[in-house]
């Protein structure tokens, strides 16, 4: 029983469960709300937020997991979103390397920059694997809209990501 709860409380399980919930929001609510015709990227938001909350390496792993889950519901080649989101998580985590304790505005800037980079990187990565035609002027609108949205929700997302990724110091009472 103790082992079971340990598994449930592990960062990997939490990240997966968080990803499942966020993905369901991505494919339902955020698929309907399309400001300027742009699908807001919540999965990318949580990838970047993971980096901000737990550092570059953890951000890369979390981003990879979120991206992989996203790839499962897309028709794009599997692994493409994973590598792009992983990079975004790693990049956003860089804020912890530059600043000892990042302030809220630093987190916002890091998430916005990482988001915009990932949105621009995705068509380029697609081009590498032979999926042509995604690079266009519209990509700028998509990058700006996604970056703005993710910047607004960066701080609460980082808190949720921290819950998922940072192992609690004390185990829950029922797990003892």
């Amino acid at each position, binding site marked *: 029983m103790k082992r079971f709860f340990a598994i449930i409380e592990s960062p990997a399980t939490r990240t997966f469960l968080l990803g499942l*919930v966020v993905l*369901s929001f991505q494919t339902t609510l955020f698929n309907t709300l399309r400001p300027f*015709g742009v699908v807001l990227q919540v999965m990318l938001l949580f990838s970047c937020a993971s980096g901000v909350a737990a550092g570059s*390496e953890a951000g890369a792993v979390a981003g990879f997991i979120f991206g992989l889950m996203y790839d*499962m519901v897309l*028709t794009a080649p*599997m692994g*493409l979103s994973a590598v792009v989101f992983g990079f975004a998580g790693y990049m956003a985590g860089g804020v912890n390397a530059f600043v000892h304790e990042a302030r809220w505005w630093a987190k916002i800037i890091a998430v916005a920059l990482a988001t915009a980079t990932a949105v621009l990187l995705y068509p380029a990565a697609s081009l590498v694997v032979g999926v042509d035609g995604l690079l266009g002027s519209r990509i700028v609108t*998509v990058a700006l809209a996604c970056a703005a949205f993710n910047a607004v929700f960066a701080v609460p997302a980082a808190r949720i990501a921290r819950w998922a990724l940072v192992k609690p110091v004390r185990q829950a009472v029922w797990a003892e």
Partner: protein
Amino acid sequence: MIVVLLLTSILLVTLDLRDSGFVSGVRDTFGTVFRPVERLTNVVTKPVSNAWRGVLDYGELRKENLALKDLLVKQEGTAIAAAASVREAQELLALNGLPTLAGIDSVTAQIVGQSPSNFSQTFELNRGKSSGIRVGMTVTNGAGLVGKITDATLERSVVMLATDPEYAIAVKVGNCPANATTTTAATTTTSLPAETTTTAAAAPSSTPDGVTTTTLPGETTTTSSTVPPTTTTTTSTTTTTSTTTTTLPKPTTTTIKGFTPFSTTLPPRPGGSGSQITIPETGGLVPRETGAMEGRGIGRTPIIRFVQASERLGALCEGVPVVTAGGSQSLAPPDLVVGTVARVVNRKGTAGPLLEVDLAANLGSLNFVRVLLYQPATEIPR
């Protein structure tokens, strides 16, 4: 760790691009786990989505609804006439042993989801393998081609829209038809004395395809000719020394833009009212060019490449219909309506022109679609 992730990504991309069964198996399993969570979230977030739509789209929807009502009234009559024509065409094709869409079963499905990506253009249908849907099948709606099935599970399937950059299909494009000429009254009454032969020829100097009628002595005859609107030459030749009186009333010509110009009007019977029967000439049918239509992404019209401009076949112009080419290697059966040519972009050299296509189906407001249970040979798994 970063290197491991990168290598894993490369491995997954490679496996997926090579249509690995492992990747599709993982996707199916994940879909089974994820679907209940998605449904639950959909129920919870539905009020928010509805409120969003209500606030932003209400006025637009009202206007669109009124416009659609008007359009519906106008279209009803046309649709009935078109249905009759389609039926006739299908009967003719069946009589000649040619493939028709009528012989292909179909499944109606509803769109239940859309791709959450900003790049891919896919929809999810509420029907899957249990309804006979397979990867590669063509999806249409009442207006025309919508796309093709790219993934199918037991109860769901994914449609890639024709505007997706990864979509390509062989199509036929009709060449620009010359302006049509219809002859409404071309009755000639000639009274000739004995041993008189009169030849009435009406033809442009460049195309000597006018109708020639020789009248017998003492007879009264009527002649009807199709005359191109621009150059009309009427000659009257008398081969004997006797007097000849020939009256050739000038035919009334009507120019119809975009209508096929080939028709031969038979001469009405003597004493008849001048009613005409038109027979299309097979030699004058508007030739069609074959090309490959490719999607270009959201907000951009698909284009047709590899269309060779040829003087022999005629010019390409806007407004001509685009239909699927068919064939053993094609993704869709032949003569499925795709849309019309919206713009012709001429390119230098031997590249041939590019055609932008205005799709007949409105991909922005799809609800129910029809999946043709026709799996192309290229999409059947080995």
